[in-house]
């Protein structure tokens, strides 16, 4: 069948090992005292890298039709909209009306 990318076993193992290393880094970073909110930023950033590696090389998005990548991006975008706009209410509840 055309267009079916077959990764080598070595490559897949390489991806797996890099994910393990990133997991160790994730835990390690948690023990370092980073002021809030940057500690959350760092943790999410590492998680994003891991997720991107899984999506690109285990789920084959790197070699797949661009549209599937677009689907993922759009899903994440709307997820961010859900959280961002909700926070626009919940974070600013007690603030007084801004003056113009």
């Amino acid at each position, binding site marked *: 069948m055309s267009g079916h990318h077959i990764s080598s076993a070595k490559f897949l193992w390489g991806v797996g090992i890099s994910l393990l290393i990133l997991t160790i880094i994730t835990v390690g970073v948690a023990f370092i005292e980073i002021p809030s909110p940057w500690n959350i930023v760092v943790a999410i950033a590492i998680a994003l890298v891991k997720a991107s590696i*899984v999506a690109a090389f285990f789920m084959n998005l790197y070699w797949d039709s661009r549209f599937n990548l677009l689907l993922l991006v759009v899903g994440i975008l709307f997820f961010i909209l859900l959280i961002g706009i909700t926070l626009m209410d919940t974070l600013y509840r007690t603030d007084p009306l801004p003056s113009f």
Partner: protein
Amino acid sequence: MSQTSAIDQLTAHVQHHFVDSDQQFESAKMGMWVFLVTEILFFGGLFAAYIVYRAWYPDLYIMASEQLDTFWGGVNTVVLIGSSLTVAMAIRSAQLNQQKGIVINLLITIALAFVFMVIKYFEYSHKFELGIFPGAYYTFEGIDHPQANIFFSIYYMMTGLHGVHVIVGIGLMVWLLVKARKGVFHSNYYTPVEITGLYWHLVDIIWIFLFPLLYLID
């Protein structure tokens, strides 16, 4: 004669409304990606609740997170990443017509998924012993915060829903295993393995985010 029947065998899986095997495969993959997007939004609601309450009660999250065992959470992360690797290897075996490879890799994936659920079981039962139940049944005295039950409600919802997805994944892969042993999958047709693999990777990705957000709040 035997040539046409060999071709028929290779194309027997093509459904009547598809032109060829490729169109069917690509459609199945696109369909699964659309479904994964719905899963992202589904869990997204829970992540939204998490973020809203963390912004309101940051101290609660720091205190409550101490009740979550970082070590076993880390082990579970490694277990799931390993299972993602083995399911990717199972797909690779299918692409290379290695029926034995498919079976063995699927078996290891299922085993790792079971390990994940067992660890989860011990985590939950330890909490129940302490009186950390969801919602109205919360009786744990160890956290000095009036909204402590809310953190654990969110914890149970997120990890519980994730656990349900793991169990569904196990069910799907057992079904795949049965079919693989019958020799249903070959390099021309391994679509169910591919799309179940995609589902499983998303379950892994969700945990990749759950782990630092729940266990590693220092």
